[in-house]
């Protein structure tokens, strides 16, 4: 008896590849490889009710006012400006170091005030945010290259912090006019 036993018959694994392909194609189709990217911002905390408004102490020359109206037009420091010039304008303002009378005293004091209308399109708003972020990033890169010989993103944490201290990104968004105050 024992001599005639052939053992278990082998299972045909020829179709395994087909099954695996089927699953593979399913996952290929359902996979979304989108890594979420975006512009990170921090909202200011809600003002305290009893806190008096005290933004009068900031020197007017240190504020770079950017207004966007409902037709997506820019008004920068009281003058109409095309979006393509905003980056250079902001860089000049931030990196003025007290040379020009009407621009910022130094980058640490520079504040960009951004105000938009309810009718402004989100696309335009993001474009403005992007240009302002680009202005800061370019300045930080320049400082990082001259100080450490590397681009800002390649620096280690403590060096990045140092550069960030030189060019703190201060983008302030005004309280929405038609909501604030009476809510």
């Amino acid at each position, binding site marked *: 008896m024992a001599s005639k036993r052939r053992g278990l018959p082998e299972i045909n*694994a020829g179709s*395994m*590849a087909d099954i*695996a*392909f089927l*699953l*593979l194609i399913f*996952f*290929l189709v*359902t*996979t*979304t*490889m989108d*890594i*979420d*990217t*975006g*512009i*990170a*911002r*921090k*909202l*200011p*905390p*809600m003002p305290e009710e009893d806190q008096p408004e005290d933004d009068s102490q900031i020197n007017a020359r240190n504020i770079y006012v950017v207004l966007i109206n409902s037709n997506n037009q820019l008004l920068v420091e009281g003058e109409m400006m095309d979006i393509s010039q905003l980056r250079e304008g902001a860089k000049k303002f931030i990196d003025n170091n007290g040379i020009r009378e009407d621009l910022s005293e130094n980058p640490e004091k520079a504040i960009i005030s951004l105000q*938009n*209308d*309810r*009718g*402004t*399109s*989100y*696309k335009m*708003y*993001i*474009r403005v*945010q*992007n240009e302002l*972020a*680009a202005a800061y*990033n370019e300045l930080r890169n320049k400082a990082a290259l001259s100080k450490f010989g590397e681009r800002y993103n390649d620096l280690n944490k403590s060096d990045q912090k140092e550069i960030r201290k030189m060019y703190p990104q201060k983008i302030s968004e005004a309280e*929405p006019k038609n*909501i604030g105050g009476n809510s």
Partner: protein
Amino acid sequence: MSKFKKSGNKGMPAISTASLPDIVFMLLFFFMVTTVMRETTLFVSVVTPKATEIKKMEKKSLVSYIYIGSPVKRMQASYGTSARIQLNDAFAEVGDIQEFIATEREAKDEKEIPYMTTSIKADETVKMGIITDVKQELRKANALKINYSTRKGEY
């Protein structure tokens, strides 16, 4: 000389396909691991605006999403075409956001709460009015870390 001569014309030997399943399985596992299944069905159509100065989002588990856009075609009959907010799997009003943030917070560890981010996925055609309302609600809910979701690209 005849020693090296081929004794017979055997033709091309068949390539062994025995390792094919292994290769396919390897690919399969790769895709299984990297796949992120969509958790919510979008009722609003969102085409995020383009930007160049973007950062990758860290810690996906700590991100809550707010979708803003006009309803998709099949929902337009009942919900119209004006921009609406979607939270999780349903349309929502601006007033629902604070509650939404509160529920999101409850699900997380207390230590992680300061690192929670709210991602605003808004269509590029929406007006800032609704975004401003959402931002005000987020401020009231003290969810101050936000992220405007954008695609990478030049204008």
